[in-house]
């Protein structure tokens, strides 16, 4: 698989605060790569390093196998990015903003190309409006337009749904999926919303406090925890004994948290387990599948606190 984006031992400090700590990651061609972490985890700092807005103290960034540095930024021609909320020259029209920003890539777009991309993000009817009249959602879509206009191979999106209403978030997600499936773009998308990444990403990394927590295929991570169920029972100790008698290993196959038991194994199905608890006289108040990735994320990140 072709590596599109790779960081090696990336570190960045702001005075005494380490924002990114020895971070290595790898994005392959065609990935929709979720970049996850709670607020303040170092996502934006990493993305700013990937887009050369800031430079790492240590480590290296390779994009399409070319090292990114202050003196070598030409590889960014193949990258389109939105870093945080997209801001534009408010006193210029959407059209003029796109034209200027495209020319900075050394590419002079035709009117058709600009109108096409504006149409793609649903802003064709506002092409001649000054950006200062745009809502946040419209700016976000214009941001995507400017990231796509020069037809990049890698698109870096930094929390693209932040500040959007549910409908806007849905539209952006659909746009990302379309870019990946229909246009074959590699997408690096950061978010602190797990379900968002779960919905669109094939690979992901979770960082916390600037450090990598886990990296891999979303499917694998989901598979690992696929059989997770939460049981709320009347007698937690008795329930534990039942599980042990069924050869389930504490800490590995199940975890106990106050009056909840989280089952993390396929050795036994939830229905069977429910029956067994009832047969053993343990009341089951509730049992439900866990929001796996989200729980997983919280567990990991909270665990690190």
């Amino acid at each position: 698989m072709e590596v599109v984006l790779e960081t090696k031992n990336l570190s960045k400090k702001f005075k005494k605060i380490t924002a990114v700590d020895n971070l290595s990651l790898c994005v392959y061609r065609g990935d929709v790569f979720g970049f996850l972490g709670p607020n303040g985890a170092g996502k934006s700092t990493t993305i700013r390093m990937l887009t050369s807005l800031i430079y790492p103290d240590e480590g290296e960034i390779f994009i399409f196998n070319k090292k990114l540095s202050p003196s070598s930024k030409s590889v960014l021609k193949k990258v389109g990015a939105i870093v945080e909320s997209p801001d534009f020259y408010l006193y210029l029209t959407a059209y003029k903003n796109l034209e200027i920003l495209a020319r900075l890539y050394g590419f002079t777009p035709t009117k058709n190309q600009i109108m096409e991309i504006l149409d793609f993000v649903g802003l064709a009817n506002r092409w001649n409006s000054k950006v200062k009249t745009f809502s946040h959602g419209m700016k976000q879509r214009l941001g995507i337009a400017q990231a796509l206009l020069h037809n990049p191979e890698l698109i870096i999106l930094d929390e693209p749904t932040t500040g959007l209403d549910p409908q806007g978030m849905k539209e952006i997600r659909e746009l990302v999926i379309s870019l990946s499936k229909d246009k074959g773009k590699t997408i690096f998308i950061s978010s602190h919303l797990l379900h968002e990444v779960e919905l669109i990403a094939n690979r992901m990394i979770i960082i916390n406090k600037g450090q990598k927590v886990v990296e891999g295929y979303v499917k694998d991570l989901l598979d690992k925890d696929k059989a997770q169920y939460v049981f709320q029972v009347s007698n937690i100790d008795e329930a534990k004994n039942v599980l042990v008698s069924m050869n389930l290993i504490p800490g590995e196959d199940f975890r106990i948290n106050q009056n909840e038991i989280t089952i993390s194994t396929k050795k036994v199905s939830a229905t069977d387990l429910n029956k067994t608890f009832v047969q053993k006289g343990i009341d089951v108040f509730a049992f439900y599948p866990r929001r796996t990735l989200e729980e997983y994320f919280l567990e990991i990140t909270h665990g690190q606190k």
Partner: protein
Amino acid sequence: MIFTLVSIELYKIFKKWRTYIGFLAFGIFIPILIYGVSVSGNHYQRILQRNIGDQFLIVGNLVNGWYVAFITIQAMIIHIPFFITLVGGDLFAGEGSAGTYRMLLTRPLKRELIVVSKFIAGFIYTFIFVLFFALISTLPSIYFLGVGDLIVPLEKIVVIPSKEILTRFLLAYFSSFISMCVVLSLAGLFSSLVNNAIGPIVGTMAVIVIFLIIGELPFEFFERIAPFLFTKYMTVWLDAFDYPIDWTKIFNSLLILLGHIVLFFAITIFYFRKKDILT
């Protein structure tokens, strides 16, 4: 690429309202000033007549378009830096406060190139502004009052023959342009350090005013400092009206001013090259 960048920067500059404040202010005020000097312009000739009219005949058109233009320059030139800093202070900080650094600097462009293009665009704006100032301070007054010799009644009375005046004015405006490029460079430097244009504008003006005050203080300590202040050389335009022209002095002053431009530009490049964009 540099041509594209400069044209984009110029487009941005001239799409902003603040760019036109100076043009508007001078466009309104200078004609009023010219009118005022014109209608009471013979004041100078009247005083001269009163002073020496008993014994001498005063020949020639003393209060002419050139004279009014000269009075206009010397009255207004001190205000040009403000309008230059309005644009210079916004060159970089404007991108910071608008958040557009995130658009601009994620492009495959070396930051040095961006600094160069912004400075060049700033210099072009400065040139256009000084050119506008030159035209508005000379053309109306010449149209209404005609030409003639120019009397420069400063420390020394210098009368410049009419055939030399155009050259002198061109030299004066060119020198002013170089002086204003220093102002722009300083504003540009300050602008690259922060993300709000107010600071660089106020900061640049503060530096100029403080340097001018220090340069004027009649104490030995300050007199020793004065030659090291760039503001001392910003009055180089006046040397264009000396007789004969002291080319060495003008050349040295311009060289020192150019040195400051290079210095401010180099510091901007050095700092901006690795500046962390956090806005």
